[in-house]
């Protein structure tokens, strides 16, 4: 049923009835069905992983109970634990994974560079600088122990806001150079790397003069952790990620054209400069929100699109949704593992994304070529 729905969304069912005898279309149809199958399997896996993730923990509930709780049955045990802690945490992991991954896949296309990702443009480093500035200079870094050995940054919203401002400053500089200097994608990547180094140097400078409490607070903030987001944070992040994803999906034909080269894209009627600039802006904004709210999570934005490419190819009609699903899967998978690996300690997910993603990615690279 899901497959049928997807087929009708992709406009494939229309041609199936009248091209029955067309030998040429059959392989293409099979090829498309293969891609839709991948998307369907990823969706099902994501739902299952979500249920598993919210049902397991210090007080484990059955999958059936988890479903009951999801549908609002408050008589089931652990209702509060799930709604207040596990469900927002798991949803944050999915939303952040989707957001970083969709920003990555769009940047890889519009910058015409396989290394394109929110990291490559220096946005994450700028957010870290913003957080460091807030903690050390503004003084939001006084922190306290909270029962267990976890540390909590006081005035987390000021820190988050400062991180967001940092990310937006980097975004603004990038877009300014892109617009007024008509910079090529190659130059944009290099500007991004330079900005990343600049903000990292700025963070190190601040850290050098910080006391050990502030230093710990900054380091703590930079460990991306999906457990940090509240329902409100989640709603803000989900809104931004949804709008960005819709924007990228609407532009999928433009990105296909740009993938074929700027000249061809222009010849096909694409306003390449405008698509590139707005795409960078949307990707930067979505990254800024995610990084500001949950900290730095590397690797997802870079690698999830490439994992998706291994399965569905470079065609953006399938690559964008596939990247979203893989992003959600990888980050939720990593967070679930981060919760159970050293129980009762809960690791920040950022530590595990690369641990899990890198070997998987290298395996896929070797397997295909």
């Amino acid at each position, binding site marked *: 049923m899901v497959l049928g729905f997807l087929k009708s969304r992709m406009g494939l069912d229309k041609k199936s009835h009248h091209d029955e005898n067309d030998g040429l279309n059959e392989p293409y149809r099979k*090829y498309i069905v293969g891609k839709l199958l991948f998307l369907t399997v990823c969706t099902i896996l994501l739902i299952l992983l979500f249920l598993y993730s919210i049902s397991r923990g210090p007080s484990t509930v059955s999958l059936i109970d988890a479903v009951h709780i999801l549908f609002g049955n408050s008589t089931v045990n652990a209702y509060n634990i799930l709604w207040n802690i596990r469900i927002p945490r798991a949803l944050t992991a999915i939303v952040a994974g989707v957001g970083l991954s969709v920003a990555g896949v769009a940047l890889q296309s519009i910058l015409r560079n396989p290394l394109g990702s929110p990291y490559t443009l220096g946005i994450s480093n700028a957010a870290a600088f913003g957080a460091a500035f807030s903690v050390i200079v503004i003084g939001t870094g006084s922190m306290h122990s909270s029962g267990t050995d976890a540390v909590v940054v006081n005035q987390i919203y000021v820190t988050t806001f400062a991180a967001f401002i940092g990310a937006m400053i980097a975004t603004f500089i990038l877009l300014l150079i892109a617009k007024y200097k008509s910079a090529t994608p190659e130059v944009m990547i290099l500007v991004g790397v330079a900005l990343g180094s600049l903000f990292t140097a700025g963070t190190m400078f601040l850290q050098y003069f910080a006391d050990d409490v502030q230093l710990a607070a900054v380091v703590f903030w930079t460990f991306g952790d999906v457990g940090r987001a509240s329902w409100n944070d989640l709603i803000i992040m989900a809104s931004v990620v949804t709008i960005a994803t819709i924007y990228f999906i609407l532009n999928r034909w433009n990105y296909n*054209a740009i*993938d074929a080269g700027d000249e061809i894209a222009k*010849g096909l009627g*694409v306003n390449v400069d405008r698509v590139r600039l707005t795409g960078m802006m949307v990707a930067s904004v979505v990254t800024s929100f995610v990084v500001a709210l949950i900290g730095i999570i590397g690797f997802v934005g870079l690698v999830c699109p490439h994992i998706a490419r291994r399965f569905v190819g470079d*065609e953006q009609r399938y690559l964008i949704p596939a990247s979203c699903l893989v992003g959600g899967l990888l980050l939720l998978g990593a967070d679930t593992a981060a919760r159970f690996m050293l129980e009762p300690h809960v690791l920040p997910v950022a530590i595990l994304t690369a641990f899990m993603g890198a070997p998987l990615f290298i395996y896929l690279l070797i397997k295909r070529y």
Partner: protein
Amino acid sequence: MSLLIQELKFDFKTRSVLRDIEFGLKPGEILTILGPNGVGKTTLLRCINRILQPKKGVIMVGDEDIISLNRNEVAKRMGYVPQRCETGRITAYDTILLGRKPYIKFNATNDDFERVNDIIKRLDLSDLSMRFIDEISGGELQRVSIARALVQDPNILLFDEPTSSLDLKHQLFILRTIKNIVNTQQISSILTMHDLNLALKFANRYLLLKDGCVFAYGGDEIITPENIEAVYGVPVMIEKVNGQHFVVPLD
């Protein structure tokens, strides 16, 4: 549909690249732009469909001025095949389907798929259609690129060095294909070329560029030893073999 270009001018920053370019083309005609390296052949081609924005000039397709249309409307009237095309893990079929981009609102329609199937049959690309374009040869990719430009349903087809990366057999195949399409669909085509003899074999109009200006424009009659020497700086003679003219360098 006819093409008319008047007073076309293009500057790169402060340097004048093309000026006072004027020529016209009727349906069913193939024009080759000839001239030495760096004279602005590719630039002229890119100006015609506004990949580069001309400084001034008029580009009329039928009774519409291309300068006043938006990019998407230009794409419905002109197909452009550059010298090289980026490859990726995309099937030839999807690459050709991309040519329908100017017409696609959200999804490709039945009509789009039908046109792609039709072009694939006409250019004999059936065996290639499900292969990935990063796994096919340069000549095959060139044919796929031409198919993509053709599904744009253009009145004018622009080719930048369509034969530069091809062997003799495929050079002839591609040029015959272009000639065939131009004749059967009564569209016009403009090609940039280095090979004078191939140009003489397939084109019926010629534009000789020198120092950013039109040195000569016309039919076979302008391909004279004097004009060729003036443009390329190489003395040549023109021989006729089996009813066809050949340019032979004397240097």
